[in-house]
């Protein structure tokens, strides 16, 4: 070779040289990708149920001032929701079991495998995540980012929070599904109306999470995205975040 190759990838292409490292165990990858369509189905069918009572929609506002109505007419009109309540209920109460089972399987796996060490927030997580958040907005980039394992503080915090909300979503769902037989559960969530509002609010948070998640995955680059498919992430991580 007459030229000096400065491409690190080429250096890593040597046989036997570690070029990729396990990031997401097989079980997590399967459960992540199974969860994705299940959650989409749950949101869509849930919205078919919600549409049935549009006389009384949830509104975000201050006092009498209406900031945002869930949802504006143009959203409703484009989702094939009208007069689909019976189907919405049937799909929702079918796929809810799969969504719940997948969540339980994930919880058990994460606990038994020790993977929880990568996700649960720790002592420094809150401070870390503030720093990461500012960094992502382009503020204070001269300061080094705090140490991290697979996930940075902001990821630990948001992933744990969204998993916790997943559990609450299932429980509030049960609370409004069987408010008589499971009346104790319903009352824990402040009664039927409040449980229904929480169930709905979490759905909105899921949608917002999904948008941010997609943006962050796009920012983190292709090798990171591929690691959720292959399990292994190519080339050393550079404090990447998704």
């Amino acid at each position: 070779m007459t030229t000096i190759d400065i491409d690190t990838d080429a250096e890593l292409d040597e046989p036997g040289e570690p070029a990729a490292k396990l990031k997401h165990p097989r079980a997590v990858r399967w459960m992540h990708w199974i969860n994705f369509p299940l959650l989409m189905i749950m949101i869509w069918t849930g919205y078919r149920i919600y549409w049935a009572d549009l006389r009384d929609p949830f509104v975000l506002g201050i006092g009498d001032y209406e900031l945002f109505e869930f949802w504006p007419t143009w959203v409703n009109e484009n989702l094939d929701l009208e007069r689909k309540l019976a189907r919405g209920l049937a799909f929702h109460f079918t796929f809810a079991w799969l969504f719940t089972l997948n969540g339980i399987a994930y919880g058990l796996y994460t606990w038994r495998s020790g993977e929880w060490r990568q996700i649960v927030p720790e002592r420094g997580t809150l401070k870390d995540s503030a720093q990461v958040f500012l960094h992502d907005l382009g503020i204070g980039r001269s300061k080094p980012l705090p140490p991290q394992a697979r996930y940075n503080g902001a990821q630990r915090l948001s992933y744990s929070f969204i998993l916790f909300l997943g559990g609450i979503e299932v429980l509030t769902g049960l609370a409004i599904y069987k408010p008589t037989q499971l009346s104790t559960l319903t009352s824990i969530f402040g009664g039927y109306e409040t449980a229904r509002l929480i169930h709905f609010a979490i759905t909105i948070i899921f949608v917002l999470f999904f948008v941010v998640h997609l943006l962050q995955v796009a920012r983190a680059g292709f090798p990171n995205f591929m690691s959720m498919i292959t399990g292994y992430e190519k080339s050393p991580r550079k404090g990447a975040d998704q």
Partner: protein
Amino acid sequence: MKETNEERAARYAELEASYPTMDAQQYKTRSRRSMLTGTAAALAAFTGWRWIQNSPDDLNIPQPLRDVHEANESLWRTLYREDKLAPTFDRSESSMIRVNGRRGIDNEIDLDAWTMSVRSEGDEIASYDMSVVEGLEKQEMTIEHYCVEGWSHIITWGGVRFSDFVAANHPEMIENPPAFVSLETPDRGFYVGLEWAAMMHDQTLLAFEVQGEPLPQDHGAPLRLVTPLKYGIKQLKRIGVIEFTATQPADFWAERGYDWYSGL
């Protein structure tokens, strides 16, 4: 004992070092295999989704969904406890409920001429007018009413227990209980079916009062079914026929794609 940033970094490094690595060739093979597996899984999921959508309908929803409704029904019927009461509220929390449907009651009737036919497997065994509720203990309950559409409303009903009506007039049904009870409006424009256990629950009433006043016609005068064990779609207004039966009765909304059980 506070962990320093250095200690934390070392702990993280150790955790990360515990994960296996592979070389570029292995990664190449792996990513090809993963893409194939992923594509196959996505196709399988899509096929499953289409299979549900394309299955023949059973009462207006695809068969697999109807099957899950029935599986859900057996689960909740297994968990059912007859002494479990729906929460009740203070009367002051209740208010008049909206009229959400007029099926089977869209014409006014002469309340004094009203009679209710009681049948067993299709044969009339008795007929009653409003005097049937006299002599039965009057109940008043303030419960939350739930609609399949998602809304709910706290409401006060007055009436007599269906179980008291049966004990007083058809005790043979208690000794030899039918599996189901079917109810119809006088014009047969609306009809529902409920399982025996729900009908005999302490909070299942033949109601003739709402908010302490006689039922208006559009809320089911003179006598309607009320129970916190079922959605509003089962709480038939203006009872014309009550039938004891061993076979699962036809149900207006179940025929339109809803869960036959519709239990709460």
